[in-house]
């Protein structure tokens, strides 16, 4: 690394990491510049991988650039709910065998990579929009499509445009019943669903040190809902502690300069945030829970790469304990990884879920994408901790999805209508 770049006080995180990592062009890069990055990790999943495999075959590339850096994850519809999906899963397993690349089944890609592979300073491309989750540990991580993924498999490199950056100054302390998801929902409601398009978001401020790795992952993941390219928490002592605990080493610890220039800056006082709910149709239709409280629901879903981590399941269990899911309402709880699933069984969360009448499933994306384990029928209403409430996302195009934290979804499951979680905490 060139010390003059690392120490340049005028660079944002995105400008600095691209400047440091640019392939054969290690020099200062500014927003709008286009350059090529070498790829440290390339991920595709079971709904983008099959198309990438097809494109890779059509290109006629004989072998992948580096099998150890390529991960295929069967997570969206796992295990296969029908024959058509099973055939595409088979295509993935055959590709894995032929090229010797890595395969994971069950765990959601973003969580699997966070638990096992991602390190600070890494360049990670994923054929999945929520790949930006790995920004939680200070990695360059962003989503691409299947054809570009095939090109990465062939060459190990990909072009990028240097994004402008947004800085968010987080201060204050969480009030009861408010979680990381409420912060990021509040932000998306503020900037709109394209408010971060082509941009890199940097989460800073005195409140960051108190955010757990799971909370940072939730925020970086869900930042995608304003269209961002990157969503970054720079490496701090908690990040370093996390990587010591999992015995992995940073590639580079990149930090923005104190005189970096930002397109926009926002101040968020966490202490002023309440439980937030996004109304159906658009992720930025964010309201305070009180404005939609009492809306009848058919299903509550707690899970997804945004909010299916252990701390999410633990808060859902705390709320559900001693209560029953309202008769006529389904409550589906889906962990984000196989490890979280096991941990929830061993620690007794699973028992609480089952006693409450909830359905506790294996790790998968599942209901979030309307593929299995909680698909919505005509006109049904769901409150969900998943990232998107778009038309037909979880099933019928007449169904409706409200988005919230796992706590709000759990409280709503008990009442059979949208409920304020603060009454249960």
């Amino acid at each position, binding site marked *: 690394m060139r010390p*003059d770049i690392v120490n340049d006080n005028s660079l944002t995180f995105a400008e600095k990491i691209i*400047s440091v990592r640019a392939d054969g*062009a290690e*020099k*200062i*890069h*500014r927003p709008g*510049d*286009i*350059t*090529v990055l070498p790829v440290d990790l390339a991920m595709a999943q*079971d*709904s*983008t991988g*099959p*198309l990438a495999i*097809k*494109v890779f075959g*059509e*290109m*006629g590339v004989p072998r992948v650039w580096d099998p150890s850096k390529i991960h295929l994850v069967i997570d*969206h*519809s796992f295990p296969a709910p*029908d024959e*058509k*999906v099973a055939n*595409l899963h088979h*295509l993935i397993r055959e590709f894995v065998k032929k090229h010797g690349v890595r395969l994971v089944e069950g765990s959601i890609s973003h969580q699997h990579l966070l638990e096992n592979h991602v390190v600070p300073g890494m360049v990670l491309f*994923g*054929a*999945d*929009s929520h790949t930006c989750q790995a920004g939680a540990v200070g990695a360059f991580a962003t989503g*691409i*499509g299947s*054809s*570009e993924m*095939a*090109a990465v498999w*062939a*060459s190990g*490199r*990909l*072009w990028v445009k240097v994004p402008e950056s947004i800085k968010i100054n987080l201060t204050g302390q969480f009030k009861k019943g408010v979680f990381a998801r409420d912060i990021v929902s509040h932000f998306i409601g503020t900037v709109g*669903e*394209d408010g971060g*398009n*082509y941009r890199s978001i940097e989460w800073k401020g005195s409140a960051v040190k108190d955010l757990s790795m799971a909370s940072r992952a939730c925020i970086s993941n869900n930042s995608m*809902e304003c*269209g961002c*390219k990157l969503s970054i928490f720079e490496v701090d002592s908690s990040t370093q502690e996390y990587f010591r605990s999992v015995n992995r080493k940073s590639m580079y610890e990149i930090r923005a300069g104190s005189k970096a220039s930002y397109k926009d800056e926002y101040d968020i006082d966490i202490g002023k945030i309440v439980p937030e709910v996004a109304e159906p149709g*658009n992720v930025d239709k964010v309201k305070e829970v009180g404005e939609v409280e009492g809306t009848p629901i058919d299903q509550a879903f707690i899970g997804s790469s945004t909010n299916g981590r252990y701390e999410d399941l633990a808060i859902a269990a705390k709320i559900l304990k001693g209560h029953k899911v309202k008769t006529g309402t389904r409550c589906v709880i889906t962990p984000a990884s196989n490890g979280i699933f096991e941990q929830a069984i061993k620690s007794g969360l699973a028992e609480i879920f089952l006693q409450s009448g909830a359905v506790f499933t294996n790790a998968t994306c599942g209901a979030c*994408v*309307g*593929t299995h384990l909680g*698909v919505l029928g005509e006109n049904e209403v769901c409150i969900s901790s998943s990232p*998107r409430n*778009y038309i*037909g*996302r979880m099933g019928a*195009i007449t169904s409706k999805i409200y988005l919230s934290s796992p706590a709000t979804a759990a409280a709503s499951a008990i009442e059979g209508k949208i409920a304020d979680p603060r009454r249960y905490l």
Partner: protein
Amino acid sequence: MTVSGLLKGRTWVWPDDVNTDIIIPFRFKARTNDPVEMAKYAMYGFDPEFYKKVKAGDLFVAGKNFGGGSSREQAPVAIKYSNVAAVIAESFARIFYRNCFAIGLPALEVPGISKQVKQFDEIEVDLQDWSVRTRDGSVHPAVKVPEFLRGLMREGGLVEYYKRHHNFPWETLETKAVAR
């Protein structure tokens, strides 16, 4: 298949923030690898019968943030295999925009365009000039994109490009970093 020259067609006008779940729902796109099959679910979230109504050479004109949400390349693929010749929008979500070039679907960002066009207007897209001519004859320039991407689009996307050149268009790219 290469794309070039002048495209003339009738328009389908779409609102702001048309996301990829609307363009093709997950449960359909995750159950096929055949682009012709994907096209049967194009714009399903707005109209499950869209595929019966669209005609070859039609053009999309949309508001801001077209193609937001999921990275699914099946979204531009479903549009392309509906034989829609080009997508014009006030702005695009970034992954969708990249995917359009990667699969050779012309995508032009034209600020203000959605107010200049009505459903089923006949308009022209000039891929050489990178502009749109509306019914009244006025010409609206699209936001410029780097030549390597326009070249990629003209050659029909990454598969066709790689088959012809045995490399990717960015491999020979001169990085335009600010010198210090």
